[in-house]
């Protein structure tokens, strides 16, 4: 029983790989010569955006006329593969069943940009569409050759072409026996290449349809293989002793207790790397082995929440008038202040946060003399490849990373530390080794969203226009968050972090403004978390907008419209739309409140949100009951998928506003499971209503994180509407509002 089922999951992967090489008829490009340069600088994530020609390596036509699509995006539920599959289908006039969509391993395509920042559709739409169109035209040329007709006489059909005499010729009949690569000089020039994905939406055949994801059946039957589900015959089971605090240094270890346990194969101690891991022939004794493994650490700085708060304290920096970067400055703040009839100023804080994906990460590695294989779920398989190669002192091309659907990414899976540990242990013990993180490791040993501390002083003129905007923000660098000590400091001085400052420039007209920023590094490891700085920044900006509207006695929706410049027309449109669908302006009911906020994500996707909140005094809780979201993300490839992303972002936004906070004591994270860090539960989740807007001819814009930024402010504004209490610090808890009366 054991071994036969064991084989099942792995043989399925092997089968996929096998068909990947054998069945291809035309392959539109060769990916044999993947340029991989070994270097001495640290392994870096895969940043480069794709260009059109990359698309040629992702799409193949098979002998049966079907199309294989090595989708260059990792899948974690955002469904990018589905939308891009629809682009392939649109160009090639084929059905969903005609496409085999494959999550590529590192040896199946050249390196591609890591799957972060909601860039999948925005950046990959073009190369995928271009390459699929080139393949279609290459097939048309084959059809012309075969029939002796001109390419103009070969008309589009379904899964093939129509000939002038009314007969059809399917793609299967056009696939030559030998491999076929479209030579550069056979590519159609860009101005002559018809791109069906770019035609008006009313002409689209598959784009804009709500295709369902090809993995759904496997998911609902438990057959989907996540990294945690992979096993190899004769693999061993590893576990790692996690350091007790940030910056802890390994001193000594005594492994005799652990190695005495029957089934424990050995303990690997790498002093320089601060690595202590144990390997066993069965997974059932790992926790016992870890318990008796005696490791002495020299702990890092005895850091507590107060020290962290003191480091990221915007008021301290304001007092010292010491900000590294002025991100935006125009007009004269003093002039603005003098012309303000109403003024508001305040400090807004958001806490450190964790990803809390439901799947704790896992890696399986098999290190051999000629080849290293890794099985994992990661947002950047080529980064994992490079990092594992570094650790093992091997060439990157010796390492193959087999990719798996990720059980929740949200920025937290750029690395897969469990795979790195598995590789160390496999190298040492000459066996395939699997390492799985538990929930505590996931909460305490990954990287985090940094805390943000804002101060805004702003004002409104008599006629309701913003007179000035003085905004200072301090946080930690995110995109370069993992850069080591002095290098990190140098980066912070040189340039403001694009992740931390995402969305920091308000979309409103304001003549006199100044936005300043300092990044301060703490011992806490920092990197991407859903939307990066966009949600914390929008929380401050859109809360202040609500304060200004209230002070000037103008309806918050009208106040925004009034202050949006003509260049923000798409944002104004979603603000109006969310007003319509939510029936904005209806009368207030006791103990309920309604708040509005809006933002533009990455200067591309315009989003407006209305949240309804109810206060339950008996349960002492705040609950978001309904959320309306209007979003303009340009061309929508798959409305169902976009709606799902919006629902996900709304839920995430409620969770970050009401529930989530990472805190520190004695140099470590205090939270270790879902009781102390509890994402929003079903019972507290709002009903979500979505309206999608797309002006004709607009290209697809980011979706995966775009609806998140306005949500926290919409909720805080609803709390104000319900209680008159302005909450400027997340998370917002019932006790904070009703401290005296509660």
């Amino acid at each position, binding site marked *: *029983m*054991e071994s036969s*089922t*064991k084989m*099942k*999951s792995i043989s399925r992967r092997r089968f996929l790989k096998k068909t990947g090489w054998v069945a291809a008829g035309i392959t539109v490009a060769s990916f044999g010569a993947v340029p991989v340069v070994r270097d001495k600088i640290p392994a870096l994530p895969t940043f480069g955006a794709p260009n059109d020609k990359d698309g040629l390596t992702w799409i193949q036509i098979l002998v049966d006329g079907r199309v294989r699509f090595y989708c260059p995006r990792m899948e974690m*539920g*955002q469904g990018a593969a589905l939308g891009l599959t629809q682009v392939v289908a649109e160009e090639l006039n084929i059905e969903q069943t005609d496409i085999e969509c494959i999550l590529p391993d590192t040896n199946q395509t050249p390196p591609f940009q890591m799957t972060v920042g909601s860039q999948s559709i925005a950046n990959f739409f073009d190369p995928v569409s271009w390459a699929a169109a080139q393949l279609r035209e290459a097939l048309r040329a084959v059809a012309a050759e075969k029939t002796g007709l001109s390419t103009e006489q070969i008309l589009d059909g379904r899964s093939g072409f129509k000939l002038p005499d009314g007969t059809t010729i399917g793609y299967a009949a056009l696939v030559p026996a030998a491999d076929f690569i479209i030579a550069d000089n056979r590519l159609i020039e860009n101005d002559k290449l018809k791109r069906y994905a770019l035609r008006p939406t009313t002409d689209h055949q598959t784009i804009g349809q*709500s295709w*369902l*994801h090809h*993995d*759904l*059946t496997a*998911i*609902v*039957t*438990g*057959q989907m*293989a*996540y990294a*945690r*589900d992979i*096993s190899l015959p004769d693999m061993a089971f590893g576990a790692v002793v996690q350091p007790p605090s940030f910056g802890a240094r390994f001193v000594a270890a005594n492994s005799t207790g652990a190695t005495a346990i029957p089934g424990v194969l050995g303990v690997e101690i790498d002093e320089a790397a601060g690595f202590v891991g144990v390997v066993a022939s*069965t*997974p*059932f004794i790992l926790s016992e082995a870890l318990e008796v493994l005696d490791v002495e650490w020299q702990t890092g700085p005895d850091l507590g929440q107060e020290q962290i708060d003191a480091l990221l304290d915007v008021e301290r920096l304001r007092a010292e008038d010491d900000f590294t970067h002025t991100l935006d400055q125009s007009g004269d703040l003093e002039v603005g202040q003098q012309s303000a009839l109403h003024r508001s100023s305040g400090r807004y804080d958001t806490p450190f946060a964790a*990803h809390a*994906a*439901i*799947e*704790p990460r896992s890696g399986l590695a098999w290190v051999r003399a000629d080849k290293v294989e890794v099985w994992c779920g990661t947002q950047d398989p080529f980064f994992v490849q490079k990092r594992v190669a570094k650790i093992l002192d091997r060439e990157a091309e010796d390492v193959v990373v087999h990719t798996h*659907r*990720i*059980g*929740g*990414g*949200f920025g937290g899976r750029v690395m897969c530390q469990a795979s790195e540990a598995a590789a160390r242990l496999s190298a040492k013990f000459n066996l395939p080794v699997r390492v*799985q993180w*538990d*929930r505590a490791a996931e909460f305490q040993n990954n990287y985090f969203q940094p805390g943000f501390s804002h101060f805004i002083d702003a004002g409104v003129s008599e006629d309701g226009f913003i007179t000035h905007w003085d905004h200072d923000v301090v946080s930690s660098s995110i995109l370069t968050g993992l850069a080591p000590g002095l290098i990190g400091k140098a980066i912070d001085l040189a340039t403001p972090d694009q992740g931390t400052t995402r969305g920091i420039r308000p979309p409103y007209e304001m003549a006199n403004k100044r936005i300043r920023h300092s990044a301060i590094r703490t011992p806490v490891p920092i990197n991407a978390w859903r939307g990066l700085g966009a949600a914390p920044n929008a929380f401050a900006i859109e809360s202040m907008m609500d304060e200004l509207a209230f002070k000037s006695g103008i309806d918050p929706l009208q106040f925004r419209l009034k202050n949006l410049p003509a260049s923000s027309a798409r944002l104004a449109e979603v603000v109006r739309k969310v007003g319509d669908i939510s029936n904005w302006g209806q009368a207030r009911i006791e103990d309920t409140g309604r708040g509005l906020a809006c933002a533009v994500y990455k200067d591309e996707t315009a989003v407006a949100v209305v949240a309804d909140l109810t206060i339950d005094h008996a349960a002492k809780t705040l609950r978001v009951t309904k959320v309306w979201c209007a979003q303009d993300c340009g061309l929508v490839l798959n409305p*169902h*998928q976009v709606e*799902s992303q919006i*629902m*996900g*972002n709304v*839920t*995430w936004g409620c969770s970050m506003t009401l529930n989530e906070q990472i805190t520190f004591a004695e140099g470590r994270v205090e939270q270790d*499971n*879902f*009781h102390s860090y*509890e*994402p929003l*539960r*079903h*019972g507290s*989740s709002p*009903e*979500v209503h979505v309206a999608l807007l797309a002006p004709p001819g607009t290209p697809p814009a980011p979706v995966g994180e775009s609806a998140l930024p306005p949500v926290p402010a919409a909720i805080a504004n609803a709390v104000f509407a319900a209680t008159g209490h302005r909450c400027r610090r997340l998370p917002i808890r019932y006790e904070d509002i009703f401290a005296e009366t509660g």
Partner: protein
Amino acid sequence: MEIVINGDMIAVPDDLQNVTLLDFLRDFVMLTGTKFGCGIGLCGACTVHLDGVAARSCQTYVSDVIGVEVTTIEGLDQTSSGEGLHPVQQAWIAEGVPQCGYCQAGQIMTASALLHRNPAPTAAEIREEMNGNLCRCGTYDRIRQAITRVAQEA
């Protein structure tokens, strides 16, 4: 000692009687559809049916389930009379519920046990019953729609 999983009799080695049902399923029987999320009963990813009732397999020991019918997501379709997938699985596909999908086996097991006991749950009952199953991707709205669809089609 033997236990019954999805209708199959499985012999339990002596040294595995005190491991959790979740670990036993995943690492001995190699039924990996049941997921680990938290290990302490807080997320519901590990939900299975014990005699048709939803239970957390991470909080259940193998020795607890002697004489009990264990059903996992892999065996769920056998528990419904119709053809093909269980109606809850079908509704999950029709409503396109899953995002990352990792929590969904647990969600489906909780929902199918609820609908078995109460074929027409109210909105409040759905919220309450499903409250123990976390979904970080935020599929709660679609889960409600899928459960309502099953209730209406029944």
